[in-house]
């Protein structure tokens, strides 16, 4: 089956079985290996990508359901070497450790912040809201504290702490 979609602003046309998972199409056909396979059952969020403005688990999406969709993966977040504020913050405050969950968490957070801004404008989301937004992303390294810290620091856009 012919699938046409846009990934990170680039148009693609693939010829794959309709049940091929979006995750496999991204990783195997397009070489975008940012999205990871964790559990394969929609629990861990490591495979999160953004489809038509909504964060989804790409391991649970058959490609036939993203015909003509616009997709964003973690590779599409930064512009070249320039990281987003959120990515910077994750690297500075220990939000990324082993890194398997990080692409998914970055996308889920970014998607949440974009939607939040659309709905609530300048209001800053609280810890409870951030936690709820990231409920679908598991992390086994950080205990989440550093992740929430990174998100909160990014919201405040805090400058780099002094190193000894």
């Amino acid at each position, binding site marked *: 089956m012919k699938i046409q979609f846009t990934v990170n602003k680039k148009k693609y046309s693939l010829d794959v079985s309709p049940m091929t998972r979006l995750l496999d199409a991204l990783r195997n056909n397009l070489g975008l290996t940012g999205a990871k396979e964790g559990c394969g*059952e*929609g*629990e861990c969020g490591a495979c999160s990508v953004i489809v038509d403005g909504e964060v989804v688990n790409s391991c*649970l999406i*058959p490609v036939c359901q993203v015909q003509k969709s616009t997709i964003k993966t973690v590779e599409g977040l930064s512009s070249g070497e320039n990281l987003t504020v959120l990515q910077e913050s994750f690297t500075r405050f220990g939000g990324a450790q082993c890194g398997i969950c990080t692409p998914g968490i970055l996308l889920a957070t970014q998607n949440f912040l974009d939607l939040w801004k659309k709905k609530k404008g300048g209001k800053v989301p609280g810890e409870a809201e951030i936690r709820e937004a990231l*409920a*679908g992303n598991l992390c086994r390294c950080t205990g989440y504290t550093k992740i929430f810290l990174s998100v909160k620091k990014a919201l405040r856009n805090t400058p780099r702490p002094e190193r000894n």
Partner: protein
Amino acid sequence: MRGIASEIKILSPKNLKEALQFLSKENSSKLHWKVLAGATDLAVEFNAGKLKHHQLINIWPLRQELNKIKFSKTGVTIGAMATFTEIQNDLGINKYFPNLAAASRLVGGVQIQNRGTIGGNIANASPAGDSLPALLAYDALLNIQDSDGSRKIPITEFYRGYKDLNLFPRELIVSVEIEFKKHGTRHYFRKVGTRQAQAISKVVAAGTVQGKTSIQAVTFCLGSVGPTPLRCEKLEKYLTCPEVELPIRDRSVIDGARQTVTLDISPQDDIRSTKSYRLFASQGLVEDFLTSYFRPSRIFIKDRP
């Protein structure tokens, strides 16, 4: 063993009419084509190599047609392809049917809520489906269509046994209807899971109560404690009695209710929980329901992160 994508045929109809025509042709005698909605359940089966069906009819393209949430003078009609994100973001649902909004917030994580549909949750018929006790407690009606016409049935008549549905393979659930509850109705929803978020429930409860000084009408439904999500009819009968005064402070009534609910349910041991814990938790939920519903009208979701 992982499922193999090339072994699965998928047909994607363009609209409802086309889908129904196809189903009535192909599925008239037996289920040959399985309906694929948001894929949040079927893709999990596929990934685990447990998907029994090799022919799927993908109704995701029907979303535009079937995802509307429309209010009328008597209640709301929710399109079967409305996602849990759309349901929880709807102001009317939050205001008039808070149990359903609460349930929608607790289905998986954001990723699942963005893709999982209410019709899919109903048809998948998991005893642990979070939205199902909420729909049962609201006496929801299902609009079901095939290519010849439509019928409307109460959701209480939809589940006949474990994954045994009052639905022909040629039919599709197109929408869910819920009537407004009487003014002053109290709503209760509570999910007990392993983790605060993203856990399949061990027990899930939804209920409503009408009445000021005594209970006029009550519904109480539980999930994960039997082969289907179920209404606790014996408990409802026990509570609908002029002698039960509101607010409930009488210990003997609470103890009676705790006893009665055990007659309604048949919990089992499985990977998520045990029979005895589920029994214990169900009784706790009944007590929580009776002792907290008369606080200022709002929903109680203690498991929210």
